[in-house]
């Protein structure tokens, strides 16, 4: 029992379980609620928030795991979303390097920018692996809508990720 609890307290286990629940929201409610015809990306939000909460290295690893889980339910090549989400987590984590003591609005701004960039990287990566027809003007709308909506909910998402990625015994 203690062993199970010890495993459950590991940040990776918590990340997997939380990402599983967020993924279920992504594939159900956020899949049907499409403002301006754009599917909101809460999995991407989780990646950017991980980077904001725990820095670029952990953000990249968390983004990779989140992206991998997302790839497993999509028809895109496995690993493609993972590399894009890892990059987004890494970029979001670099906030701590660029901004000294970031405020709530700088976090929102940077998370929105990282999410928007992620939505531009995704079709680029798809084009690199040979998918055609994904690079069009619609991706700008997608990047804008996803960036704005993710920025709006960055602060609670960052708190969630701070708890999820905390090492056992670490201050949250």
């Amino acid at each position, binding site marked *: 029992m203690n062993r199970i609890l010890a495993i459950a307290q590991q940040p990776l286990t918590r990340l997997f379980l939380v990402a599983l629940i967020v993924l279920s929201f992504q594939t159900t409610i956020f899949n049907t*609620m499409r403002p301006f015809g754009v599917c909101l990306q809460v999995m991407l939000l989780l990646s950017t928030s991980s980077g904001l909460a725990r820095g670029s290295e952990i953000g990249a*690893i968390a983004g*990779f795991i989140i992206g991998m889980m997302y790839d497993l339910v999509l028809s895109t*090549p496995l690993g493609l979303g993972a590399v894009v989400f890892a990059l987004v987590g890494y970029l979001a984590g670099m906030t701590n390097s660029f901004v000294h003591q970031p405020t709530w609005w700088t976090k929102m701004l940077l998370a929105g920018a990282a999410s928007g960039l992620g939505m531009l990287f995704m079709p680029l990566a798809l084009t690199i692996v040979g998918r055609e027809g994904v690079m069009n003007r619609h991706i700008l709308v997608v990047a804008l809508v996803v960036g704005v909506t993710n920025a709006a909910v960055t602060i609670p998402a960052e708190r969630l990720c701070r708890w999820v990625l905390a090492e056992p015994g670490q201050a949250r």
Partner: protein
Amino acid sequence: MGGLTRRRVIAILALTSILLITMDLRNSSSVSSARRLFGAIFHPIEGATRVLTTPINNIWHGITDYGDVSQDNKRLKDLIARQEGATIANIAGVREAQELLALNGLPTLAGIDSCTGQVVGQSPSNFSQTVEINRGRRCGIRVGMPVLNAAGLIGKVTESLDDRAVVMLITDPAYSLSVKIVNQPPPKVTVPNNVSVSPENQTTTTTSTTTTTTTIAPKSTIPGFTPGVTIATLPNASQNPPSSESTVAGDIRPGQGNVSQITVPPGANLPLRETGALEGRGLSRNPIVRFIENQPRFGVVYIGSPIVSSGGATSLAPPDIVVGTVSRIISRSGTLGPLLEVKVAANLESLNFVRVLLYQPTTERPSAP
């Protein structure tokens, strides 16, 4: 998770991604197994979340879609009333066509089993057009099988789990299918009785405002031969017209060659067909048909000409499944044939019940180990 340097982290993640992408693009079985295993863990959680979020979902659709739904409802009621009569006539026509095909030993859709499923979700991505249905391997569904709804073809199965299957829609850029374009002859207009037609100069005088064009049988320089007529006779034959029983081509006996017949092959008035390749073009763009040959016999393609699957040993779908109609023609110079934009018959934005034909194309069958 600490302890790793920044460079090592990036290098490891990048290499892992490249390895996984390569494995997936080469259709590795371990990647498929991983997807299946994750699906088995994830789908119960997804199902529970779907149940929990249904009220929120309904509120959202109530706010955003009410006006459209109300208008659609009125329009569809009118449409149903108009189509009920046509459906009965069409059913009779389809039965006759199937009987004819069966009599001639040709494949028909009626001979292919199917599995009906319901769409339970669409792709949560902005860059791929797939839907998920609630039937899978247990129903006999395999990768590559064509999927259609009441209106026509909607796509093909790209992934099959025990009780789920992912369907790639016809609009996905990765989708391609060989199709036939049935080029209808130019529109015919009935000529009223009070129209005088002068065959000499082939002009039409009409007193009716509804008549726009007139089809006039073309003249031929071959004596006795009238194009479009199944049996034509030489001048001598007009004195002794042959009975309908003795109209077999080449039925001329030695010494009795004074009465000869020219047989025009049947089917000259049937719609002409040309094959091409249909390709999806992504979100909010209609699919196109390429590789139409610029054949004079095929003639000009008309907007509204039906497009159906062509079938064949390597095709992804059996023949004669309705795909859509030609909505726009993009002409190209030289020997390049035209590009045809297709208005898909099925409404891909509101899919509900779909039918998977249990027809696995040869190109999609797993090779024997």
